[in-house]
Every structure is written in structure tokens, then in C-alpha cells.
């Protein structure tokens, strides 16, 4: 392969330490959705466990099972979504906590755990305004009543939500809804469920949003928010760098072996500054499987060009800001077919 994703596990470990000290005394739930944001699930989980991370968050149950395999019996894992009864069974068998955000899934988890004679650990989600997954506030009391009737089969161990980050005042309103729901749950079950509301940005910027657990993926991978504080202010470093080898050289430009089909966004042509052995150059064009950059004296096939990320002139979020999107999408659009090289 003439292109790869360089993953700096030392930078990852440093970010984890930064997250831990920032959110303390709340604990860090490392979010590892989508192959750990494309960084590679197994190496990321293995390193995170070695660095003391206890909680992991996934979108689906299969990823949660992969975390269990890589991270061992000691991790706590929350899978956010239940597709079917097979998911519930596999979660029960692997001691994976389940995120539940509607009455149908709540009933399914209770029924299935009861049929199996097992106890499911559930984090019940209150909809505080995003209107995605989550029980609407007017339906919350009924959901808590269902939980109480199902105590033989489930343990309510968490209450959670996502916030919109539209404005501080709207987030404050969401937080008030969240606290009311969590208080009602705490008055209904023993011990009181854990509370978790914030992801990366709010966990760092607003201490009152941290509660018991901070669900942080982006900052752990060194992906800062678009338009937000700089990496240095946050104390994080991008973990991944998209790299490509020089495959051809002519008078004024160099061709490298990564293209649009590899996830180098074609819209970055003409605007992205990349790193070459001769210094920074502009990304001139993006073809299907190759790209061209401005040449430098002595350029030779095999020379490595850093296209974006921690070891490149521009980070994923810098590139995202050129495109009007977010760093997470830029990183996740890098093809999973490219090899990951760990350092």
C-alpha cells in the first residue's frame, strides 16, 4: 500500500491522561464507536485498559463484544443501541450494559432477561431535546414504573442523555430536564443510577455537565471541535495522520498514492496544505486513487507526504473547517481499507 493511517498510541495515552484529570472526579467513558473512530478498535481498547480506562461506550452490541474480547472481563461496557433479541442475549452473556431509549426496547429487554433468568443492566435515556433516541419527559414516569415492575429482570444502573450544544441556555434547560429525570429514577430504585450527560466539548467547558461519567471519544483521539478552542488550550493532540508515499515526480508536481476513493476528500484540492520533505506544499488535485501536491527539490518516489492529522500541517478539524464540516467526519471518511500503522 502506498497510503496508510499513522496512529500514535503515545499521543492517545497522553490525551487519555488529559481527559481523566479534566473530568475528575467524574470518570471517563471512552467512546469507541465505529472502530474507535477509525483508529482500530483492538489496539485502542488494549492501550486504554493499560492506561486505566474502565468504561467503554459503543453504538452497537457487536462492537461491545469486541471490546469485551480486547479489554477483558474488568471493563464496563455500554452499548447504546439494541436492534433485536439477539443483541439482548449477547449483551446478557457478555455482561454488557444496554442503553435503552424507548418503551418498546425496555419491554423487550425485561422480557428477554426474564426468559433467560438473567439480570440486564440498563441505562435509561431521557430525551432532553435532541429528539433522537430517548424517552420524552412526559413519558418518563411511566418508564420508571415499568422498570420497577421489572426489577426481577433488570437493574437500572444509569440515566443518560445527549445535549444539543446549540447554546448554553438551551443546554442549561436540557440539564434541568435531565436532573429531574435522574432524581425521579434515584427516588425509585436502589442504588441510585449513575448519571451521564456530556460528551467531549461540554465535559471540558462546563463542569456542571460532568455528573458521574463523561462520554468522550473525540478529545481522546485528539479531535477538537470545529470553531472551538485550539488543541493547545484543550491539552490534546491528534492521534491519527493520513500519510501517502510519492509514486511519481515531474517538473513541478509530485503524485502521491492516496485519492478520493481512499477518503482524501476531493474538496480539499487547492486549499489543503500538506507536509513534504521539502516543507509545506498545497494539495493541487485529487484523483480517484492518487493526488498531486506541489513539488520540492530532490523529490523521489517513496518520499512520504503527510496529508492531514497530527503529523501534518493541518489537523482533521483544520481540514473540516475548510469544508464546513467536523473533524470526526474527516477522520471517519478515511477508508478503513487503508492499513493502520501504530507507533
Amino acid at each position, binding site marked *: 500500500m502506498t497510503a496508510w493511517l499513522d496512529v500514535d498510541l503515545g499521543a492517545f495515552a497522553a490525551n487519555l491522561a488529559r481527559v481523566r484529570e479534566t473530568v475528575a472526579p467524574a470518570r471517563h467513558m471512552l467512546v469507541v464507536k465505529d472502530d474507535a473512530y477509525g483508529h482500530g478498535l483492538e489496539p485502542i481498547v488494549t492501550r486504554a485498559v493499560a492506561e486505566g480506562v474502565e468504561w467503554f461506550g459503543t*453504538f452497537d452490541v457487536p462492537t461491545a463484544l469486541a471490546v469485551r474480547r480486547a479489554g477483558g472481563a474488568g471493563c464496563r461496557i455500554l452499548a447504546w*443501541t439494541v*436492534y433485536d433479541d439477539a443483541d439482548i442475549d449477547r449483551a446478557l452473556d457478555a455482561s454488557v450494559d444496554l442503553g435503552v431509549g*424507548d418503551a418498546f426496547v425496555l419491554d423487550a429487554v425485561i422480557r428477554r432477561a426474564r426468559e433467560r433468568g438473567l439480570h440486564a443492566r440498563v441505562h435509561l435515556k431521557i430525551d432532553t431535546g*435532541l429528539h433522537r433516541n430517548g424517552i420524552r419527559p412526559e413519558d418518563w414516569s411511566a418508564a420508571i414504573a415499568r422498570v420497577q415492575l421489572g426489577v426481577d429482570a433488570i437493574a437500572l444502573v444509569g440515566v443518560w442523555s445527549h445535549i444539543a450544544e446549540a447554546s448554553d441556555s438551551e443546554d442549561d434547560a436540557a440539564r434541568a430536564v435531565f436532573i429531574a429525570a435522574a432524581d425521579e429514577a434515584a427516588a425509585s430504585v436502589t442504588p441510585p443510577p449513575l448519571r451521564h450527560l456530556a460528551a467531549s466539548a461540554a465535559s471540558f467547558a462546563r463542569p456542571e455537565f460532568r455528573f458521574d461519567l463523561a462520554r468522550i471519544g473525540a478529545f481522546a483521539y485528539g479531535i477538537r471541535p470545529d470553531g472551538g478552542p485550539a488543541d493547545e488550550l484543550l491539552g490534546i493532540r491528534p492521534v491519527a495522520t493520513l500519510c501517502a508515499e510519492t509514486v511519481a515526480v515531474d517538473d513541478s508536481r509530485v503524485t502521491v498514492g492516496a485519492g*478520493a476513493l*481512499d477518503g482524501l476528500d476531493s474538496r480539499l484540492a487547492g486549499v489543503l496544505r500538506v507536509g513534504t520533505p521539502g516543507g509545506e506544499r498545497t494539495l493541487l488535485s485529487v484523483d480517484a486513487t492518487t493526488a498531486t501536491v506541489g513539488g520540492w527539490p530532490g523529490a523521489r518516489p517513496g518520499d512520504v507526504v503527510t496529508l492531514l492529522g497530527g503529523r501534518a500541517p493541518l489537523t482533521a478539524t483544520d481540514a473540516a473547517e475548510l469544508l464546513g464540516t467536523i473533524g470526526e467526519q474527516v477522520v471517519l471518511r478515511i477508508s478503513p481499507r487503508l492499513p493502520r500503522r501504530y507507533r
Partner: protein
Amino acid sequence: MPSPRPARALISLAALAQNVRGLSGVADVRRDACGHGLQACGPVLAAEGLALWTDDERPAGTVIEPARLWGLPGGGATPVMTLVGSVLSTKVLRVGEGVSYGYTFRAERDTRVALVSGGYAQGVVREIGNRAHVRVAGHDAPIVGRVAMDACVVEIGEAEVARGDDVVFFGNPGTGDPDLAVWSDVTRLGAPEILSLVGARAAREAHR
């Protein structure tokens, strides 16, 4: 009631064979057949008499236009890939309430929304939030609010939509599916680079 599933990239091998029938030359199947899956698509193209341009080797001959091969917008052929998500849940949305990060959509009247599997990690490009629609239960439903990493929200109004229903993000416009051309127009991304990532990250299923 069927259970919902993660977003799936359905690959029609019949459409692929039809698109190249009678043509000769070279089929560009680099990068896992542009996300369509070399393992399933390669034998179909070889059976139609085409040479395969892989990541390792470029045979001599005229290269068939990718738009014709994969049925991309403007190619005059049938789209080979259809991206399908599932309804995970439905709920009411009251007038004035927002949807997803930043509340970039607000309900102008009481309505209903569905949460759908498929987000930008599966190639449902984030920029199409509020700018494209899906097909669900026989209705066109707009994607409302920002597309999230693994899911998005569509407005279903009074349509009879239930957990587990298929949601077509894009497919064959000739049969009423949303058109990938809208995604290209909105994002300025090329259709091949959209499909390359969808095929790599969504669950891919090839059908005869």
C-alpha cells in the same frame, strides 16, 4: 414486525451485469470495486467478458466509464448500490421543538419523526441534513437536523411508519428511490467517493 438493522449497502449484481452487457474492455475495480465489493462484483464482470483493473494490475484496453459501470448519476445505467437504513424508533415532535445537534431544524407544527440507522460513519454524508429526503413506507421523508455519527432523524408526519421499516437513503430513482445526484449536488463530492466509503463502512450485501 421485522427488527431494525444497521445501515446496509445492497449491491445488485443483476444491475451490474445489465450495465455492462454488450460492452468490451476494462472494468475499473480498484479500491474494492469502488466500495461495491470486488469479491462479488469481479466474477460478474469477468463473466461478461471484461478485463479487471485492480489495485495491483492494469490490463490493456479501453476503460468503461465508472458512471456506466456502477450506474452513477448521469451514466445512463441502473445504480448498482442502494443504501438502506432501518427505523429504530418513532416519536412525536411538538411545534417549536428542535432536532439533533445545534437544533438546525425546528418543527413548524406538531409532527412525528423517526430515528434511522445510518450516519456519517456509514457514509451518510453529514452535509445532507435538512437538504435531502429518504424513502420510507412509500413516503418521501426529509432528513431533519444534523446527521449524527451513526444515525439520523427523518420527519414522517402522519405516515404509518414503524420500528424495523426499511429506509432508502439512495438507490434507483427509476423506481422511486432518492437520487444519489442530490447528495453530490449538495456536498460537491463525487459520486464514486461517496459510494467508496458507504461500501466500506455500511454492512454490504450482494444480491443476484
